[in-house]
């Protein structure tokens, strides 16, 4: 009896031991993994208020850390510049900050902000003006007054304008040093037309002609509260922050109402082969494409899937074929770009050693033809693309700051505030048939421009195949 009891006891104790701790059975194959459901995603909604002077204000609380972040969008943009003064908007954006205000010199402003480890920055891009402010919540009331001052009363101090102009001039002098800049500029000219503001380029002449009066006039024309949207996220109570905004922005009188003129660009690309000689490279840069789309396009969701299949992931066609399989490139990319209120570009691009320039051009055009004609998107590809986008949706709303930034963009470009939810629903509903149809419609090899930037010696044989190759002169005017 005694001898039998012990093993039974051991067995009982052993089995108790086994069940006491959670036992992860590690899987052999990834397909065997099962995941619990993700909690429901709730997208935080800011408070939206429009002041009497037309300023639109969005406020969102975030109490994780004792900081506040303010972002502004101003209705302006470099695309509105007169031809003779290209660079004016950018300079206005830069010197608005560096030049100080009518009561606060630029250097004093720098000392003040850096001493507090706070920041105020301003800028003007192609289609929008921006301003931002970051500081500890304790400094909010004080720094936001300075922020308004910078936006409302910039002094554009002459010595600061001179520094900014010098920087632009130096940038022009260097604009052909790296091939990436050349590709971007020349491709934009080919797609939008060289006279379009969407392809404009600063020159020594245009920058040289810009005066302080020009900056003041630009500011005077566009910087009014009825042309602004303000977003605040941080460790505040909404009511308090709104009261503060009303106090510091409320007295700024409303400005004139006007609509901006249409910005011209060519609505279809003229096909052709173009070449830029740049001999200090061991690669050729190749870019092939035409005009892209606007996000509001009815085919937006299907084309997003097309882009995912082409270039959106490791399993994507371009990566797998041109990089992993053929070893022709480290960077290869392709897709139909989307703009907010004007079309972006659609392009297939890569860099490859000069010896394989021809193979590179062929590989890219082949992939374009495949996806729109000979090997259209499969059910599996569409399913995988949808899965990636839907499963990663949680990241697009993973912080109050990120959500507020997106809402500012939607507000500025006139998109519905539930655009994110519409995106998710739209992707969910997309069918393979829709993706195939949209791909055929929006990737147009007969409209392709082909641009090659690289050494003449290495690329000559690749280009010899074409009946006509237009050589582009990128020499810097006035140098």
């Amino acid at each position: 009896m005694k001898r039998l009891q012990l093993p039974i006891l051991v067995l009982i104790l052993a089995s108790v031991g086994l069940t006491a701790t959670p036992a992860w059975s590690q899987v052999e194959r990834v397909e065997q993994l099962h995941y619990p459901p993700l909690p429901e995603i709730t997208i935080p909604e800011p408070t939206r208020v429009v002041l009497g002077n037309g300023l639109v204000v969005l406020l969102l609380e975030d109490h994780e850390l004792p900081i506040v972040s303010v972002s502004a969008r101003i209705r302006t943009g470099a695309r509105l510049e007169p031809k003779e003064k290209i660079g004016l908007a950018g300079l206005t954006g830069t010197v608005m900050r560096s030049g100080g205000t009518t009561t606060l010199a630029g250097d004093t402003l720098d000392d003040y902000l850096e001493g507090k480890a706070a920041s105020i920055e301003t800028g003007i891009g192609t289609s929008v003006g921006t301003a931002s402010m970051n500081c500890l919540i304790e400094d909010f009331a004080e720094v936001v007054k300075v922020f308004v001052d910078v936006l409302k009363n910039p002094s554009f101090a002459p010595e600061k304008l001179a520094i900014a102009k010098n920087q632009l001039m130096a940038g022009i002098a260097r604009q052909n040093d790296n091939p990436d800049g050349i590709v971007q500029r020349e491709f934009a000219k080919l797609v939008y037309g060289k006279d379009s503001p969407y392809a404009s380029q600063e020159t020594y002449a245009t920058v040289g002609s810009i005066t302080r009066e020009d900056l003041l006039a630009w500011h005077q024309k566009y910087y009014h509260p009825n042309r602004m949207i303000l977003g605040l996220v941080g460790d505040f109570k909404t009511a308090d922050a709104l009261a503060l905004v009303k106090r510091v922005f409320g007295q700024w009188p409303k400005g004139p109402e006007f609509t901006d003129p249409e910005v011209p660009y060519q609505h279809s690309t003229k096909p052709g082969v173009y070449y830029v000689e740049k001999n200090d490279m061991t690669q050729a840069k190749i870019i092939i494409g035409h005009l892209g789309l606007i996000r509001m396009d009815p085919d937006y969701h299907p084309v997003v899937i097309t882009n995912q299949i082409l270039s959106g992931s490791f399993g994507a066609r371009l990566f797998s074929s041109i990089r992993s399989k053929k070893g022709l490139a480290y960077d290869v990319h392709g897709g139909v770009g989307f703009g907010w209120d004007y079309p972006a570009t659609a392009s297939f691009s890569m860099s490859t050693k000069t010896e394989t320039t021809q193979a590179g051009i062929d590989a890219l055009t082949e992939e374009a033809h495949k996806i729109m004609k000979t090997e259209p998107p499969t059910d599996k590809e569409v399913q995988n693309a949808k899965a990636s986008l839907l499963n990663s949706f949680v990241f697009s709303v993973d912080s109050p700051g990120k959500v507020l930034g997106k809402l500012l963009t939607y507000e500025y470009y006139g998109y519905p505030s539930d655009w994110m939810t519409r995106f998710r629903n739209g992707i969910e509903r997309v069918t393979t048939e829709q993706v195939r149809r949209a791909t055929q419609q929006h990737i147009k090899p007969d409209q392709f421009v082909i641009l090659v930037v690289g050494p003449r010696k290495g690329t000559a044989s690749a280009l010899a195949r074409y009946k006509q190759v237009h050589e582009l002169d990128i020499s810097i005017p006035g140098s």
Partner: protein
Amino acid sequence: MTYLHNRTHPTPMRHRLLSASIIKVLSLICVLLAFPASALSQSLETFEQRVTEHTLKNGWKFILVERPVAPVFAFMTRVNVGSAQEGAGVTGLAHMFEHMAFKGTPRLGTKNYAKEKPALKQLEQAYLTYQQAKFDPQANKQHVENLFKAFKDKQKAASQFVKKNEFGDIIEREGGVSLNAFTSADVTGYFYALPSNKVELFAYLESERFLHPVFREFYEERDVVMEERRMRTESRPVGRLLEQFTATSFMAHPYHHPVIGFASDIQSYTMTDAQEFYNRYYIPTNMVTAIVGDIHPKTLIPLLEKYFGRIPSSPKSPTLRTVEPPSTAEKTVTLEDPSQPFYLEGYHKPSISHKDQPVFDAIDDILTNGRTSRFYRSLVRDKKIAVAAGAYGAYPGEKYPHLWVAYAVPGRGVENAAVQTAIRDELKRLKTEDVTDEELAKFRTRAKAHLIYSLKSNLGLAMSLTDYHTLFGDWRELFRYIERFDKVTKADIRRVAKQTFQQSNLVVAQIETAAPPAQTH
């Protein structure tokens, strides 16, 4: 070097503590000068309470931070091996292995491993045979060509079993984002973020890929790495300059060769080389993983034990014994190039573990941080000779003695000599005059503010935690480190400046614009 090409072109160099996007300090116990103690220390104490550390028996260390802002998490695994561990003939191998770590395992990325395994063995045999003949000056040319063809046949045969990019594909299909990796002179890092319900996917993939990586598509990937080299180094003026500068600066120490590797090495290292490198360095005691986000240590730790605990312990990796001898001669590299002038000068300095590192951080801040910095105010604002000027204090790495590098972009029509003089004037000032109280106060204030701003990112936190753990042996060193800033004195700065900024300790590198070549048509 990164595995995927970021459109914003990251550089392999890092700003250390003084760049807001890089510093991710976790906690603080000292009283901060400029900020109300309550709000700040409260948020930091809260953060520290959310950290759990766990080390496996095999030595793999995990740092877990609960940050449930959204149902997501991010991780970074930092392996304590970089290009400095490479020997002659295999430069670029650490980075090459980083690429290999995306190729899968016997269970992922293959259509039939039972058939693939022998095919890969035969492929390697064929390549080694071919390579030996290729480098044999006595070998018959036709024979070498035949061996090359045999190798290509075996390569084709092995590639038919490959399920392309299945590893990365699965991560993305399950909602993963920010998938990438990087290699530096000191370390190799792997990272991505996932929705929080996919924790087991992370544990499976990140243990599998280091438990038994399969080096499929090795020779195809060498071509990809060559394109990366052509893009980053060979086709950019500053890329060309930096490669020359780095090689000139280090006579003996492996910091002298580029992380991407020299072209001839990239084109001749083998699967066997990569396997040996991996066996020697990818061992659990060289790994630290930080996981940050909506995670629960109680359930996560058993998961980590089960998956990562499978990896066997290994003997320690060899330690790098070479020490760069003190510099006794000034060196200059001048590159005649079609592009605009560019100037930099580097001074040798001790490794990051040296007691004077906080003094170097102070020097960095005072000389280069922001519009109030000395470089900006002197070169850009007052003298108007540069459009940008700054410094990298951790070039090309920081684990071993390295370089402090000042650089300037001359304005249009300005010679390199002018920016050189201006930089040296500022360095001389540091030796002969005390910095001001305001400058020291600003340095401390900004470092502490970055602490707060930097806590808002799962991936950023994971990167910093593993960074400090690797360099200092303890992630907590981050907050001890900040305390050291309070002890940096004006006399310290003068002493370190005098020691470091000396002629004999200097390497200059510059681009001089060459006259344009005659038109080719």
